[in-house]
């Protein structure tokens, strides 16, 4: 099967997203699609699978002009799309999710659950997992849900599988597993469109790569003929130089000190210190419990025992409000669910944690809120028409900057950043790194959770590694290597050997 998209254009109202994109993929190859946040990658795929109509251009399948009426139609013609945002029914069981709208029926038109279960198990075991198919899918980790999505694709006998940032939520192990499956299927003649912001993955898995910028496809390469620098230049339109800016840290006094923090069954005996001007990275496998530790510190979740000291004084943080009063900020890993109020304006989003500071005579001083939001948006180079547009109208990377702006604006002395660059393009990533440096220069302490090991090594001063809810080691970034961190992340030397 060969798909050619020619001269595709698409505008959302005045926002011209695609202005003549060419892209082609055929059976048995992995073709990566890259581009900044908002470049239109997902949109292009939505047009291919018929979810959106296009404004111009043509789609040829095996040379025939084709247009699918919708995702189901595309799927029935062998094109399966694993969306960037997972489309699961959290309350429904795994098997019901997998077979939704393609249930197996018996001769009375009733659903044949046994047969569906059997098939579901079969396909999941092909991916090397034995998930309980009767569990509601919402109780599974995001990684496992992603695997189920993939199983769903395979189940449809797809000839072309589109993966839109499939690894954003996977663990290293799961990524390896996924790549194994991709290579296996490739041999069987399945073609892949692979969208990702992670450079190293592109070079590992893709045969070809196409870069999009400014609504057109800039270049197409064979992966073996291109290097990272070139791709970045194509995507961003300029040199970024080093991926990670140089850090020149100056530590001040200990600002936050956590002692023996424990929540039974989630994390245990967590102790660490952070200094002014320091970036402490939290590394570990997905599900290690890093997020949970930070949620507890920030007062979102409960903990059974342990103490938290700020500037040497013991504090009790009972909810986020009191955390904010103690000048702690928390950029959550999930900006849509926990970071932003999508229907509210950028201004209201940015000002929310510090809104109490804008009250004059009992009323909000709107003028200074506007100025405040504007200033921060300029400083963080948020791309938006003005501060009044809704947060939901921005691209992912810009949304992330808005969340960052709100915590910078609230005057945080301690910033917890949970996966600050997940799903963010290289250009924006670099801007976020620069900002982190600037903040630490101003004595802010940063705790950065990241599953991206190069990022951890490139941007932190110290690394705390979490394994199954316990800190298995805190090491200086200087002298640490991917291998040494991974060893700790998988439970230390013993475990590493056992594996």
């Amino acid at each position: 099967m060969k798909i050619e998209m020619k001269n595709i254009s698409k505008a959302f109202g005045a926002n011209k997203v695609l202005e003549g994109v060419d892209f082609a993929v055929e059976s048995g190859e992995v073709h990566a699609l890259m581009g900044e946040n908002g470049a239109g990658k997902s949109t292009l795929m939505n047009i291919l699978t018929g979810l959106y109509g296009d404004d111009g251009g043509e789609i040829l399948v095996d040379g025939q002009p084709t247009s699918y009426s919708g995702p189901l139609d595309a799927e029935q013609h062998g094109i399966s799309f694993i969306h960037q945002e997972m489309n699961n029914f959290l309350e429904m069981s795994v098997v019901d999710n997998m077979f939704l709208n393609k249930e197996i029926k018996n001769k009375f038109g009733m659903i044949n659950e046994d047969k569906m279960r059997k098939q579901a198990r079969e396909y999941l075991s092909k991916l090397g997992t034995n998930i309980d198919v009767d569990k509601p899918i919402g109780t599974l980790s995001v990684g496992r849900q992603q695997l189920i999505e993939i199983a769903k694709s395979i189940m449809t006998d797809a000839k072309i599988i589109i993966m839109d940032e499939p690894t954003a939520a996977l663990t290293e192990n799961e990524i390896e597993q996924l790549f194994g499956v991709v290579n296996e299927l490739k041999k069987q003649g399945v073609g892949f469109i692979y969208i990702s912001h992670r450079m190293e993955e592109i070079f590992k898995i893709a045969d070809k790569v196409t870069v999009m910028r400014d609504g057109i496809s800039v270049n197409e390469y064979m992966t073996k003929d291109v290097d990272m620098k070139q791709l970045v230049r194509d995507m961003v339109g300029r040199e970024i130089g080093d991926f990670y800016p140089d850090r020149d840290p100056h530590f001040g006094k200990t600002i936050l000190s956590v002692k023996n923090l424990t929540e039974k069954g989630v994390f245990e005996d967590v102790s660490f210190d952070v200094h002014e001007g320091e970036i402490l990275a939290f590394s570990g496998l997905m599900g290690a419990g890093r997020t949970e530790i930070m949620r507890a510190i920030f007062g979102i979740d409960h903990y059974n025992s342990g103490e938290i000291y700020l500037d040497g004084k013991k504090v009790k943080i009972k909810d986020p409000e009191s955390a904010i009063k103690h000048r702690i900020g928390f950029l959550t890993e999930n900006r849509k669910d926990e970071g932003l109020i999508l229907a509210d304006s950028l201004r209201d989003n940015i000002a929310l944690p510090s809104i109490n500071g804008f009250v004059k005579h009992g009323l909000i001083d709107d003028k200074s809120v506007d100025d405040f939001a504007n200033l921060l948006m300029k400083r963080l180079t948020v791309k938006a028409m003005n501060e009044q547009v809704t947060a939901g109208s921005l691209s992912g990377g810009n949304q992330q900057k808005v969340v960052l702006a709100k915590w910078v604006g609230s005057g945080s002395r301690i910033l917890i950043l949970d996966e600050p660059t997940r799903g963010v393009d290289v250009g924006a990533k670099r801007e976020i790194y620069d900002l982190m440096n600037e903040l630490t220069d101003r004595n802010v302490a940063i705790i950065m959770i990241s599953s991206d090991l190069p990022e951890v090594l490139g941007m932190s001063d110290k690394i705390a590694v979490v394994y199954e809810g316990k800190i298995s080691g805190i090491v200086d970034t200087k002298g640490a290597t991917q291998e040494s961190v991974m060893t700790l992340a998988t439970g230390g030397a013993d475990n590493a050997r056992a594996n």
Partner: protein
Amino acid sequence: MQEQTKSVEAEKAKGFDFKKFVGKMGPLLALIVLVILVTVLSPGFIQPNNLLNLLRQVSINAVIAFGMTFVILTGGIDLSVGSILALTGAVTATLLSAGISPVIALLAGIALGSLLGFVNGLLIAYGKAAPFIATLATMTIFRGATYVFTNGNPITGAKMNDSFLFQFMGRGYLLGIPFPIFIMAIVYLVLYLLLHKTTFGRKTYALGGNENAAFIAGVKTKMVTIWIYTISGLMAAIAGIILTSRLSSAQPDAGTSYEMDAIAAVVLGGTSLAGGKGRIFGTLIGALIIGTLNNGMNLLGISSFYQQIVKGIVIIIAVLLDRKSNDK
């Protein structure tokens, strides 16, 4: 919020058993406790005669609530069921009084109910009106239409009482069991199969769980929505026929505020108002809880003023026990 997160964790911690247990058995346990309580306080309650009585009383609310279950599972709501009941009842009664064959009159009533439900579905699926406000508006319109149609008078024709078939619907007995109970049982069975054993049922859950995802999975969300409100209208029409037959007359204000009892039955049965979660078995239990409360308090001779207070408190207790934390 803090606790909300915790309760989610707690559920996760205990695998799924506790939640399943409370979710599935909670309403049933509540019903059993209630039945025991009422029996102790008023032994007359447990007599076969009274139980048949109770079931017959429950049947109207139950039939409406079964339809409402589908609606609520999609995250919607149907406030117009009471008005649909009244209008279909009035039309059926008028046709009967005009001497039309009872089979045709009954089918006409059912067709009309489905049509009115279909209109709700259209407004919601294509008009994109919020279900609450769309059915609030049609509730008013259908009620007004009932008044216009009946000119405000109850409809009682001699011919209506000539039809054995029609009278049988609400007042008949089969093997000593009131016929409305059979209707309720049949409707339950059909809707149970529809919800749990057909693709339509799966789509209903999917629509309520995540409309966007359902659309992407190729579910014709609009069609499903329209069908679901049509079913709800159909159920209201069946309830209307039972009621009209039981009363031997169609009242223009019949069914007023029945939507609240139906919604209460659905929610008591553990179905989430946010959609995507729930079972029709729960609705049956919910309707029985409400019926037992009404019947029991009548037997106990509790003043109607206090009955209202008790009913409200029972609903609150049941819902608090269930702690549907993420409903809106």
